[in-house]
């Protein structure tokens, strides 16, 4: 899967250089109490068509970073380019927001329409797309996330996972090159989480949309091409999921959960079994265990 991706699209869709974002804390009278550096000297390069995951526990600055990629927040220092456009330049603002769509955590607070199809049409309406094309875009994006049969429903009657898929469709209808998902599954049950992640992976595989998934669920990260782990505003670990999950001890230090199979393999390795590093799925684990058994007995 990952061998095909990025082929022919080698220009970076997102480039972040020396990004620093500070916000000023104030007490009740409005006096400056101190300055918090939410994002500290971050450099990122994301290629068109990539599936990138950003991990980190609460307060690690991952959501703040995400909001820079969509020109909702502006850097205190450093620069962010989206599709070659500097996010700090006002004239690019709407281009950038269209190029890099964003899905937020709470599905209820980002659905504007009272009917599913109207909500999906909201973005194209804002962009001034002609009526006929809006309908085409709504249809194709609802089909892409598997919500087409719900187009006449009220969003209030949908489950969390379905609402989040509608939100994703709302972003796809704007034809973005890149979609940023800021903890889209944090408020969902396991079933809803699976639905959303499946939809996101399909978008990346089929439509070749760049995906930036921000999450603290490790299971969602194993499909990514590249993982960035953030702590205290800085990127502390990066690499393929396998590389990142090899560092079990480091991840534990960062208060991140490691997938259970990875953890089990790690424990076995520490007990002296010849298990490879960075096992991510049950299937890999089973194979490795078979090899291990063959080798030992």
């Amino acid at each position, binding site marked *: 899967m990952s061998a095909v991706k990025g082929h022919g699209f080698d220009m970076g869709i997102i480039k972040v250089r020396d990004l620093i974002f500070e916000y000023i804390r104030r007490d009740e009278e409005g006096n400056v109490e101190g300055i918090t550096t939410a994002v500290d000297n971050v450099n990122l390069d994301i290629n068109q068509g990539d599936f990138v995951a950003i991990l980190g526990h609460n307060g690690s600055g991952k959501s703040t970073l995400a909001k820079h990629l969509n020109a*909702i927040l502006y850097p205190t220092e450093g620069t962010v380019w989206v599709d070659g456009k500097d996010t700090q330049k006002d004239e690019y603002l709407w281009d950038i927001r269209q190029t890099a769509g964003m899905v937020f955590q709470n599905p209820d607070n*980002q659905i504007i329409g*009272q009917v599913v199809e109207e909500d999906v049409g909201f973005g194209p309406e804002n962009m001034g797309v002609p009526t006929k094309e809006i309908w085409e875009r709504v249809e194709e994006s609802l089909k892409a996330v598997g919500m087409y049969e719900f187009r006449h429903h009220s969003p209030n009657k949908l489950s969390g996972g379905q609402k989040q898929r509608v939100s994703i469709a709302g972003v796809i209808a704007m034809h973005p090159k890149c979609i940023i998902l800021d903890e889209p599954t944090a408020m969902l049950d396991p079933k809803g989480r699976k639905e959303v992640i499946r939809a996101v992976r399909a978008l990346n595989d089929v439509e070749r949309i760049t995906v930036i998934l921000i999450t603290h669920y490790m299971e969602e990260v194993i499909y990514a091409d590249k993982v960035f782990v953030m702590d205290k505003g800085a990127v502390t670990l990066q690499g393929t999921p396998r590389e990142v999950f090899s560092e079990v001890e480091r991840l534990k230090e960062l208060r991140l959960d490691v997938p259970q199979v990875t953890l089990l393999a790690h424990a076995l390795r520490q007990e002296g079994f010849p298990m490879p590093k960075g096992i991510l799925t049950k299937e890999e684990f089973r194979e490795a265990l078979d090899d291990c058994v063959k080798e030992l007995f």
Partner: protein
Amino acid sequence: MLRDITLGQYYQADSVIHRLDPRVKLGSTILFIISLFLFDNAAGYVVAALFLALVINLSKVPFRFMVKGMKAIVFLLMITVVFNLFLTPGEPLLTIWKFRITKEGVSLAVLLAIRLSFLIIGSSIMTLTTTPNQLTDGLEKMLGPLKRIKVPVHEIAMMMSIALRFIPILMEETDKIMKAQLARCADFESGNIIKRAKGLVPLLVPLFISAFRRANDLAMAMEARCYRGGEHRTKMKPLHYERRDFVAYAVVICYLATGIAAGYAAPLLLSLTGMTGGV
């Protein structure tokens, strides 16, 4: 318990009235209400009743559904009727202790009762056959000319539709907070009015905080989806008049004319046949 409250309830059906442009329905409702206050004799009300019956029949909304909506205002209706019945000066019909019912009082009370119930039924036909979204769209388009005098028409319509979208969500939230506070022995039901009002504070404060948080999130989500006010915006479901809409306008104007004509013609007819009086 709170979820039972429905606002601007819509009755799904496939009828001519449902398909009409919301602007037609809004305009006609306003005209109908005005007509109720223009007519001041029985003949006018007969015409209005016939017109209402026709529209109800066309709308395919069961009549009992509309009567349900009337229940809420029965109390208001009673008060108006009682006040008019007893406090109108004129020729006395009946005297009970200090209260006097006059002939004028009876006719005024009957007239008002009819006027009010027609008014409620008339406007509930509009809300029952038009989705809230169509209504706000219609309002936006109708008030469009006011943009020239700097009235933020698009913004008002957007606020209305967002408010409608969030009513069920906030209802659910109120329910949740209420249960959470009840679990901590909050008391919403006992005591006098002042005590009960005070009891609502632990319900309202978290509700407001969460509403502001939601508003903030929603604003960010809207901006992230390129929302920048009404300019340059296209419509997914634009409104345009069809032939049936012009027919509807014509019907409403016919109704108005008939009603007014009936008002003049009825006394004349009655006097010709020698039956003077009437209401």
